[in-house]
């Protein structure tokens, strides 16, 4: 059996899945000041009466690292950054203990200016005096040639604890994001490691020795052991959990919107043939733009508990939330109260809802029922407008070849899947207003936990080759090989797949679950003075986000017993 656990703002959802489908589901309140207790309680409760031997995997989606970063509660770390010419790396400063040093590598990975050993040692001495343990090292173009990062690492490795190097974090270009991502990994490392080691220990003490996997923002998982080196990957996994929970019910062979409608916000995501659309560069967390792979999601400040105001004759919904709906004792009217007025709510104080909506209705000079309908419509329309804008943006993403510009895929969703607390109430109106099919994700109240449980291990490999310099390399995978002038794109793809397979197995995947694909494969003749001097090849392959079991079977099992 598999456990999926997703920590949310108010509740933590836990699901236990077995061969027969959903075995058990629970919700425990989230205590943001004691996530450890929250998670242990959730895991204990879900396994009550279950023999530990029957559980072979637990996937956790937590807010641990996200909250630590956003609240600025991460320990100080050191950053040594080698940029060379270009934008002043001071602009990319991540923290107090940040040291730009000399050294420069060009776009083809050739050294332009060496690292200055004295500068690095001086920085190290200062960092040591400041009591810094963990360090991030980042060089410009290190994903083409990691030599400078490795040199800096070797110069100072005896003086520090855990060290993170930019080229190991991602194979993609983007120096400022590489700096931010390396910093985030370094700074959440100890928090992440200590926390999950404690979780593991406690579980073991209770006789629950389960392999733990961590959910990532791209909707994939990685084993806890491999997450120690990439703790930053655990940020912002929440929206991914919900999307993965919806996937089993998405239509085959078409595009589909996923709306996770919560109390304060609605998260929008897009699936193309049951595969979520990813952010092209990486996720953004607060001021940090990163190279961390993630699903493309758009979060808007509108949900069941959004505050309703009347400004002039105009209705405004959200983006703020004052509290729960008036029906549940809240201070001001919300879309949820509108449902009560329309006779759709249960187990709440309808009279209070009516009172709240009546005040809105009076300002708009209409009946409470008409006002409630207007609120519902406008809420749905706002959500749909944002979804449309997200679709348009995906479709207007720049492309770089004539072929893609002409033949590039255009996203045209025909189905919407909704989940989250108020979702069932919104579904019909969304369908009427959008003209799309709208389905409520079965088990929507724990779909996120189910999504976490069933997400497969994902990863990406970037490989480049330069036959003039006679190299093929994937610095992220610590791979570098001499190649001859016959090395081709086809050979590069084969090699990249080999590395990807190795990587996914190391990070927690299994051989029967490798849905690999090429995301980029470019080959250029390099010409100097009208003569071809070699080939420049760039290849990216990935295991795409998806479920560990065959999708239709999952859907069938989850629907069983409903």
């Amino acid at each position: 059996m598999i456990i999926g656990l997703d920590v949310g703002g108010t509740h933590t959802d836990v699901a236990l899945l077995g061969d027969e489908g959903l075995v058990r589901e629970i919700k425990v309140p989230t205590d943001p000041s004691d996530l450890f207790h929250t998670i242990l309680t959730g895991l204990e409760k879900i396994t009550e009466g279950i023999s530990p031997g029957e559980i072979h995997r637990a996937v956790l989606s937590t807010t641990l690292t996200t909250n630590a970063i956003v609240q600025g509660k991460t320990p100080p770390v050191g950053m040594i950054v080698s940029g060379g010419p270009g934008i002043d790396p001071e602009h990319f400063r991540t923290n107090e203990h940040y040291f730009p040093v000399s050294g420069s590598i060009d776009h083809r990975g050739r050294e332009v200016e060496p690292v200055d050993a004295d500068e690095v040692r001086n920085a190290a001495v200062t960092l040591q005096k400041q009591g810094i343990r963990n360090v991030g090292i980042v060089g410009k173009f290190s994903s083409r040639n990691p030599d400078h990062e490795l040199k800096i690492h070797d110069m100072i490795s005896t003086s520090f604890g855990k060290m993170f190097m930019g080229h190991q974090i991602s194979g993609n270009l983007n120096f400022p994001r590489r700096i931010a991502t390396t910093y985030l990994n370094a700074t959440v490392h100890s928090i992440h490691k200590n926390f999950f080691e404690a979780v593991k220990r406690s579980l073991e003490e209770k006789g629950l020795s389960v392999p733990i996997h961590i959910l990532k923002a791209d909707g994939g998982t990685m084993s806890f052991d491999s997450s120690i080196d990439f703790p930053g990957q655990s940020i912002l996994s929440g929206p991914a959990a919900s999307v993965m929970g919806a996937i089993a019910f998405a239509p085959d062979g078409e595009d589909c919107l996923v709306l996770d409608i919560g109390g304060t916000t609605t998260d929008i995501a897009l699936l193309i043939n049951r595969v979520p659309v990813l952010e092209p560069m990486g996720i953004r967390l607060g001021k940090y733009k990163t190279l961390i792979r993630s699903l493309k999601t758009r979060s808007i400040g509108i949900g069941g508990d959004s505050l309703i105001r009347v400004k002039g004759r105009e209705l405004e919904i959200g983006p703020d939330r004052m509290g729960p709906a008036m029906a549940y004792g809240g201070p001001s009217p919300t879309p949820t109260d509108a449902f009560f007025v329309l006779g759709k709510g249960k187990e709440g104080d309808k009279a209070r809802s009516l009172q709240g909506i009546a005040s809105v209705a009076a300002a708009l000079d209409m009946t409470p029922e008409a006002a409630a309908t207007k609120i519902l419509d406008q809420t749905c329309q706002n959500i749909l407008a944002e979804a449309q804008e997200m679709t348009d943006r995906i479709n207007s993403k720049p492309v770089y070849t004539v072929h893609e510009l002409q033949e590039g895929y255009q996203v045209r969703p025909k189905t919407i899947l909704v989940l989250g607390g108020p979702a069932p109430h919104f579904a019909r109106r969304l369908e009427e207003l959008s003209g799309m099919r709208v389905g409520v994700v079965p088990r929507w109240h724990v779909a996120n936990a189910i999504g976490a449980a069933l997400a497969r291990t994902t990863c990406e490999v970037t490989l480049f080759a330069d036959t003039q310099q006679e190299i093929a390399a994937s610095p992220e995978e610590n791979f570098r090989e001499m190649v001859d002038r016959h090395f081709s794109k086809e050979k590069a793809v084969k090699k990249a797949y080999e590395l990807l397979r190795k990587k996914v197995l190391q990070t927690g995947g299994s051989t029967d679950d490798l849905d690999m694909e090429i995301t980029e494969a470019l080959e250029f003749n390099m010409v100097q003075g009208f003569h071809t001097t070699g080939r420049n090849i760039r290849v990216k392959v990935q295991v795409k986000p998806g479920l560990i079991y065959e999708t239709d079977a999952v859907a069938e099992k989850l629907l069983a017993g409903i």
Partner: protein
Amino acid sequence: MKQAPLPLPDCRAGAGAGVEIMLTAKYKTGLVFFPAFDWAISPTHPEREERLLYTQDQVIEEGLFDIEGITEFKPDLVTPQDIERVHFCVPDVWGVTTESHLISAGGAKTIGMAVLEEKIEKGFALVRPPGHHAMRMVHGARGFCNINIEAIMIEFLRAEYGIDRVAIVDTDCHHGDGTQDIYWHDPDTLFISIHQDGRTLYPGSGFINETGGPNASGTTVNIPLPPMTSEEGFIHAIKHMVLPILDEFEPDIVINSAGQDNHYTDPITHMNFSAQGYAELTNLLRADIAVLEGGYSIEGALPYVNVGIILAMAGLDYSRVREPRYDPDRIRQTPDITAYIEKLGKKVLEFWGQREKIKSQLRGTKEFVERTRNIFYDTDNIIEKQKETIRVCDDCAGAIRMDSSADRGAHILGLHVPIKACRKCKEVARQWYESGRKDAFDMVFLQDRTEDKYERSER
């Protein structure tokens, strides 16, 4: 499921602006980046797939698209009408363009629209293939160019947004003879070309006495710089020739044809300009729109020059942008060159100052002025013989008649009615068109800019 409410409202993926960002563009800047990774003139031609590959690497690695206030746009495609507004395409638009040309011109158009709709303050179309050697009459490709992407953008903006006075500053190392040809007779378009002296480089034109036709004398300005000119010379030309003339002309919009082949590492030219120089030039010129033209030092120059130009356009610090092993002393121009350029500057301003006098000399008492030229299409190896007639006019830019025959056989008549044409010029062009259709031309084209209508009749 929603995660814990976070203190920063914008920290979720896909959330909008409003968070603290360290680098913010002073001028909102838009970029179209279209490297056409699947298009080349031929596999080892300078205009090939690889040309903007390292520029893309550099721009992405520097994180330029992440800077607050810098936006990347997807290029639109131009329509046949957009092209016919500018060119007589023989035999037709499809015969002289590929998809890549439509996108390249489309990229410029996208940027132009974004600037005029005030989505951005400055825009740069980093597109290929280039266009500034394409003249009004197009039998094929010249100097790697088939259609003139700046002119197509400008005429589109005139048609759609009603802009009037335009200045083009062409800083490509080669004389922008195509753009010069298109605007030779247009007094509302100031065309300034700074380039390596035509006695030493393709296309062999662009001397200071080329100042425009009888209705537009002075609004073509040529600044031919000697080989080995470096930063000092270019900056002098901008400060002491281009800027004073621009000030006097008072354009609604300034376009920079931003060729990057003045670079000291360019394989097909002989200048000593640098990334720092290009950035400084961009900063001084303050063009609203830049459009990439040539530049073939694809590894050693373009990545750095483009980063410099983008930062300068956005009003950001570019002082640290430099090429590997850049040494200003090694490329510094000689005192002779400095003295030559200072003298040249005085002459250029003299021509500019005497434009009315030159105009009346060109006109004399003639009602029509003719010029006959041989035009060589080096890329496609075509020779065109062209006789151009312009009606001398005080009320508009003047009707134009082009009688053109190429050694490939086609004999063409092209007639142009300028956008603000007077009634008389319109009538004259109409008459030319009607009588031309009876004559022995293979094709007759009519460009009526007043009605935005483009006709073509074939024998």
